[in-house]
């Protein structure tokens, strides 16, 4: 029933490629509770894919499944044309899936720069010994990755807070730093967990701009969760709507707007 769309170029000239991630019949239970009920959808290269739904719809659980933090009882996760076996989160990260967190998960003991540098860890290979010596490979690697990170810092316009301890930053900036950390991993798939949560209008606009720019400049595939429908609709190419762990809609923003079930869900029509 999944609509088969061929690789194409969007009206605003972005390339949408083939299927990057395919979720097939995912079901997730906590004890007796079914957080996700047999949900299937796919994410294509280069697109911005939104997962929306009222609070408690199971969006976050879905994201946790994708990022390998939860392991679904049923269903398969296909990534880049191969079935992904049950993995530890850090292995998933090394596949090229990076994410941000709904309630910010930065490393408060470190500076902004160090936090973003942690995003490069999956790319840094020098071993313990050469790190001990530092001079040579380790130092070189550090400098190279610093250069990458600095470009992201520049991209997200956070030069001024480079050396500030993240603890001291206001909420909006923390969110941006977290995005930077995820970007630093140069992910193939970027997961954003409620990127706009708790932001004022202005911050939301900034964040939307950055999300679009990221997708645009780096061609990064982005899957994001939001409960605020408005933002998502302007942002994303396709939207999955979840409610009570079920998928009640999947399609372009336009289609979603027209979908009666979605409207009900959002107007909170009683569930039988």
């Amino acid at each position, binding site marked *: 029933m999944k609509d088969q769309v061929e690789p194409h170029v969007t009206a605003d000239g972005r390339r949408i490629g083939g299927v990057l991630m395919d979720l097939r019949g995912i079901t997730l239970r*906590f004890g007796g509770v079914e957080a996700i009920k047999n949900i299937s959808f796919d994410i294509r290269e280069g697109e911005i894919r939104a997962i929306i739904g009222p609070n408690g719809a199971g969006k*976050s659980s879905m994201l*946790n499944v994708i990022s390998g*933090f939860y392991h679904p009882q049923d269903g398969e996760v296909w990534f880049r044309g191969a079935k992904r076996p049950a993995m530890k989160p850090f292995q998933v990260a090394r596949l090229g899936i990076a994410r941000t*967190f*709904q309630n910010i*998960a930065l490393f408060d003991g470190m500076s902004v720069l160090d936090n973003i540098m942690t995003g490069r860890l999956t790319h840094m290979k020098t071993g313990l010994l050469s790190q001990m010596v530092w001079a040579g490979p380790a130092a070189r690697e550090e400098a190279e990755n610093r250069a990458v990170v600095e470009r992201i810092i520049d991209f997200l316009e956070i030069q001024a807070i480079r050396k500030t301890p993240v603890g001291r930053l206001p909420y909006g900036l923390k969110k941006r730093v977290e995005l930077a950390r995820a970007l630093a991993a140069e992910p193939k798939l970027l997961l954003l*967990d409620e990127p706009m949560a708790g932001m004022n209008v202005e911050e939301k606009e900034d964040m939307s701009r950055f999300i679009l720019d990221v997708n645009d400049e780096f061609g990064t595939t982005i899957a994001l969760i939001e409960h605020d429908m408005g933002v998502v609709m302007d942002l994303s190419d396709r939207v999955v709507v979840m409610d009570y762990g079920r998928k009640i809609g999947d399609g372009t923003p336009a289609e979603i707007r027209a979908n009666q079930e979605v409207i009900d869900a959002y107007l909170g029509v009683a569930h039988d």
Partner: protein
Amino acid sequence: MSADFLYMIEVVINGLMAGVLYALVALGFVLIYKASGIFNYAQGVMALFGALTLVGIMEGQVPFAHIINATFGTDLHQFGWTVPALLAILLTVGVMILLAWMVHTFVFRHLVGQEPIILFMATIGLAYFLEGIGDLMWGSDIKTLDVGIPQGGSLWVENLSSGLGGEDFYGFFIDKLDITASVVAILLVAGLIAFAQYTKQGRAMRAVADDHQAALSVGISLNFIWVLVWSLAGMVALVAGIMWGAKSGVQFSLSLIALKALPVLMLGGFTSIPGAIVGGLIIGVGEKLFEYTIGPMIGGATENWFAYVLALLFLVFRPQGLFGERIIERV
């Protein structure tokens, strides 16, 4: 029944007795941990401090005698009176309550909301402090404590049980003190549970343990509760101190033995009173048995570490302890 087996049983029984005392100390930990999330490393030292104070008061010692003498060249040691055990115990309880109040007001009230590990380290500091103070007040020499608890092997049990085995079995040797200890311990636990169940403060205490914010919102004074639990813990410690002290003299090693409560807790889980008791018994029995059976082969004195290694292995397979419930991690 073969004598070996019977001796084995005797070991088990003695283990149970020791376990009761571990449980007693562990109980103190649980009380404080449940109410304030503080893992009170100093519980053992509190037992030592309690015992020292009790002895000091009973024998009418002059506190801080050494310093006073050293500074003023005096030669004070005794007030020259002795205090009856019961009165002394009451006084000591008073001291422990005062101590509880001070500990809370001067230390932990300023650490509310800190990470558990910080609180833990603070209690280590407290342990040092109390040990030092205890020694300064009452001197560090080993003291014998006699509050009139019957001592020595219980003939009654011995005779009663000697019939069980052949002529090479002389019946169970069980120290009366241990029996008393167990009885006291059981009473204490019962008392505590009753207190927690049926008194206003007790219910408040449990409310706090469940949810600080909620407790606050219904107008329970956290500070009061915290002082309360520290006092209770202090008294429990005192009792434990008396028992240990009576058994093996009041000395620093007492606080080390009390350390055993830590593995006990790791088995029982930090939040469950029954856990503490069961854990205590397991450790007590376990280490005695191990020493009795394996000990001789590997040079003995295995009580030093058995409890910890047991707890360690146990934790690796069941991190939340015997009675703790599973935690689902969220992002």
